[in-house]
């Protein structure tokens, strides 16, 4: 990685400023994920409302990052690592923005679920899954700021754990729905939440892949490890159980 400064120092200031925005956005998205999951578990409508309101700020930050990146390209004609930095900034901001939307959606559904009966300990499982994803996202962003391709590769591998948590929840929800059809409404919402958290894991992975591109100049070649089996399973709990 290039650590030496540019001769024209305003270039460094521009690059640092746009990356500081990414870190700020990352912090807001991480907080949104944790808060939304907590609002779901503790049935805290006010916290859920706050997550929904904050998403507008996340979206605004993404727009600002895209504008700053466009400006950098137009005014500084970045090359090599500088160019890859700007390209990754654009992609990471888009990935974070999606994660923010999923957190907002989680918060919305938590308000609905607050009016329905609890389904086992599923909200606890969801919170654990959200915690795992938040950690994944945090490590992906750390790998970005430290230009740590090793940590990024590690994040890519660990997305599998989130996929496995999702598989387990998928089966759990099916079981609850078959046991008692009155659980169906809640379980449908819970399933969307779990799926969205699983997608956040995919976005953390794509951030990690951007870091590998930024550091090495190439995207990772080997296919990403996938453990989400639900797309190809017929989902009967008895058959799906391990």
């Amino acid at each position, binding site marked *: 990685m290039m650590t*030496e*400064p*540019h001769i024209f120092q305003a270039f460094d200031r521009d690059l640092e400023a746009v990356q500081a925005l990414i870190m700020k956005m990352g912090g807001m998205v991480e907080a949104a994920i944790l808060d939304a999951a907590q609002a779901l578990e503790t049935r805290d409508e006010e916290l859920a409302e706050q997550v929904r309101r904050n998403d507008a700020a996340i979206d605004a930050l993404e727009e600002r990052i895209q504008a700053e990146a466009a400006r950098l390209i137009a005014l500084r*004609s970045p*090359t090599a690592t500088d160019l*890859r930095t700007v390209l990754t900034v654009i992609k990471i901001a888009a990935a974070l923005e999606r994660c923010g939307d999923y957190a907002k959606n989680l918060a919305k559904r938590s308000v609905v679920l607050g009016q329905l009966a609890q389904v086992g300990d599923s909200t606890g499982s969801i919170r654990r899954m959200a915690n795992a994803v938040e950690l994944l996202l945090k490590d992906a962003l750390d790998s970005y700021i430290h230009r740590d391709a090793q940590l990024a590769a590690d994040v890519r591998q660990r997305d599998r754990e989130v996929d496995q948590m999702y598989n387990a929840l998928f089966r759990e929800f099916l079981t609850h729905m078959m046991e008692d059809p009155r659980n169906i409404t809640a379980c449908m919402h819970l399933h969307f939440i779990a799926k969205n958290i699983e997608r956040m894991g995919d976005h953390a992975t794509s951030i990690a892949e951007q870091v590998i591109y930024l550091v090495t*100049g190439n995207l990772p070649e080997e296919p990403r490890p996938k453990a989400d089996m639900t797309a190809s399973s017929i989902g009967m709990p008895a058959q799906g159980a391990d």
Partner: protein
Amino acid sequence: MDDIRYADRIVSADEVKIAARKAQVYYGTNHALRDVDVDILGKTVTAFIGPSGCGKSTFLRCLNRMNDTIPGCRVEGKITLDGQDIYDARVDPVQLRAKVGMVFQKPNPFPKSIYDNVAYGPRIHGLARSKAEIDEIVESALRRAALWNEAKDRLSSPGTGLSGGQQQRLCIARAIATSPEVLLMDEPCSALDPIATAQIEELIDELRAQFSVVIVTHSMQQAARVSQRTAFFHLGRLVEYGETGQIFTNPRDPRTESYISGRIG
């Protein structure tokens, strides 16, 4: 990285026009260029970039033996054009320079008419037998240099009366009038405004259909825009040579990266 511009005109990476092996240049005791190995491809624009004093212009001038005229300058190693050693004692440097033309930083038209500027080369090299043939060469060279429309009604007025950008295109017309195989350009746009620069760049891109063009430039963006291959020189050495897209997005050598991204290196 694949360069989509290759799709326009199929360029064979095997077609080596100029090859240098262990090329060395000394100015007296100063070892200005060391161990340069490079294959310059046919029908390709190759850019030489690097900080001042890095040896890029020195190397460019080796390619048509312009360094011969500098007292105390000595060239070692091997440089071949189509496989033939250009420093061989049997090679006539004047004939060589008809094949390997050159355009300089500052437009330097002869203090003659536009017509005579372009006709000069073909005449001294005996490329035409009649006035009609010379006329034809002049028109064709001026057309290829994108100057014909502006110059056709004033062919007998002095070349020095043209604008800077037109003068540079006149110099290019003069250089291509002898039907060279390689065109060397030493910062051809550094004295020109952006419009004239764009016209020269467009011209370079068109000339690529017929010649190899080797351009020395201090503008990294110009190198990125016009060339398919880029060579980075630093402290008298060729540090990195590769496909231009690769050099500007993912250079392999940290010195190249430092230079092209405007860092201290």
